[in-house]
């Protein structure tokens, strides 16, 4: 409507914003009106049809043989470029839901002065500081903007992220200490494998068997080679065994979802 006939490329951004809003209200309103007329007994069918049609895009793209010259079929560029972009855009619009929920939760904490409300205040502060400094960097190249953004990103996002990641090192120690006991055959087996692999992956473990030759039969018993063998042979085979089952489970689930045969989660409810 507005964005097609009235406003042309090159118009100021605020005019565009108004045009987009106008179109959204008119077309979205019309669609909403149409959807409201759908009788409730057809709603499930409509959702199932949308699900099925959406599923056709990637599956047909995969199974229809490509043109040998380009390696693409009639759907490839639509499926891989347009649809991918649409999904990205849609999920970014959905991000608003999450952020709204987060801010609502902490807003209530603040409004009711619940215990720990000052933490909610800090959350609000960090949110707006990060958001605004981000937008500041988009408005021209000012060193103050990029410095502020960099400062907040490093101090409030990167540093706690890296620390949270590294905290696993502590937990891995306590988990290993507690779980690796020779209680049962299974636990002992797990312990043995973990023990050898841990020893084989650090210099001190390699040092233990550094007396063995680097070639020939005995070299197989060097710590680093034992380690590598465990990871490449038994570990790889077991991994494959589990992954085949998991992938078939996922395939079956995808099939049920696509054909709206799934039960459980949120497929039960009357619409």
């Amino acid at each position, binding site marked *: 409507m507005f964005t097609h006939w009235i406003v042309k490329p090159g118009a100021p951004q605020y005019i565009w914003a108004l045009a987009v809003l106008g179109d959204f209200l008119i077309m979205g309103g019309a669609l909403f009106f149409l959807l409201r007329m759908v009788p409730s007994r057809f709603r499930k069918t409509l959702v199932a049809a949308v699900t099925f049609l959406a599923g056709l895009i990637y599956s047909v793209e995969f199974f229809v043989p490509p043109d040998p010259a380009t390696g693409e079929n009639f759907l490839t560029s639509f499926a891989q470029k347009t649809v991918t972009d649409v999904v990205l855009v849609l999920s970014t619009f959905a991000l608003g839901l999450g952020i709204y929920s987060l801010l609502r939760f902490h807003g209530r904490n603040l409004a009711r002065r619940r215990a720990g409300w000052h933490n909610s205040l800090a959350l609000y502060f960090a949110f707006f500081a990060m958001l605004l400094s981000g937008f500041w960097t988009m408005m021209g190249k000012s060193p103050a903007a990029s410095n502020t953004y960099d400062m907040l990103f490093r101090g409030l996002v990167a540093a706690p992220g890296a620390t949270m990641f590294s905290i696993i090192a502590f937990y891995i*120690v306590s988990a290993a200490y507690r779980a690796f006991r020779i209680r049962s055959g299974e636990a002992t087996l797990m312990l043995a494998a973990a023990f050898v692999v841990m020893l084989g*992956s*650090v*210099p001190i473990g390699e040092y233990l068997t550094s007396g063995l030759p680097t070639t020939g039969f005995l070299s197989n018993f060097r710590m680093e080679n034992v380690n590598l063998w465990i990871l490449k042979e038994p570990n790889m085979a077991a991994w494959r065994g589990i992954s085949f089952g998991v992938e078939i489970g996922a395939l079956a689930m995808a099939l049920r979802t696509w054909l709206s045969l799934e039960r459980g989660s949120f497929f039960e409810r009357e619409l």
Partner: protein
Amino acid sequence: METENRSRELTTTDRILRAFERLQHIDRRVMYALLAVVVAVPLIWNFKQPVVVTWPVQGAYDTIEKMPADKLAIIDIVWDSGTVAESRPQTEALIRHLMLRNKKFAIVAFMPQGNKLAYDSAKRIGSELGKEYGKDWIHWGYRPGGAMIQFMMGLGRDIPGTVKSDIEGKPVTSYPIMKGIKSIKNGDVGVIAEVTPSGTLDYWIAYVYGSYRTPLIYCPTAVMAPEGYNPLDAGQIKGMLTGMKGAAEYESLLGRQDFATRAAGALSTSHLLIIVLIIAGNIGYISSRRRRSES
């Protein structure tokens, strides 16, 4: 009084078993504190520790040793401040080796922070070893990650035309180091080393090694290392430095003990701590089982 009587009745083995039993329930905070100590101490005080050079590291070292002096090595930086503790020692060990043997090299970065960090490292080592920018080494600067494949393919056909300018914005052809360097196809690049925490090695294999057989060296973080063994087996990469440990082995080949050697010490001590704790826990477990079966 009663407890005293009971303790008198205890046999010696019983008392020992009781003491050992406590090893079953070490407080987690004690373990956390121990871990912090065994990681920090080797980083602060350097102590001598054995370093065994594994064959993938030896392979990387030999590849650089064998590179003809008229060729150019490329160090590809795909890391940023998140993995600086692993990636920087790898980068510095390679830079130091190339400078020590008077081999020419270029740095190129696909991460903005790594771009600067690697530049600082090279400048520092260069001034230490008396190397001149533009003559002995060059930094081609930062390229956005999205342009990586095009950049690699461009290097294959035309290096000056693809790189255009260096980190300071001057045309690369104005530097003596770039004299006679045309393209990878022309055989002007002797080694390509990639330092990365992400899976970008495949691009070099697909777009450069596949076409021109330029020797590749891969320097992943410890998390990514398992993925390197396949191309290593297949001969597509000539050598690999696994995280801090790989960098430490490389430092020992260069006869140095820099950060990676200390960090590898911390790796050893932290692993040893886990092993000791597991053994202690099991001693405690066995003692309590023995005592229970005896009583």
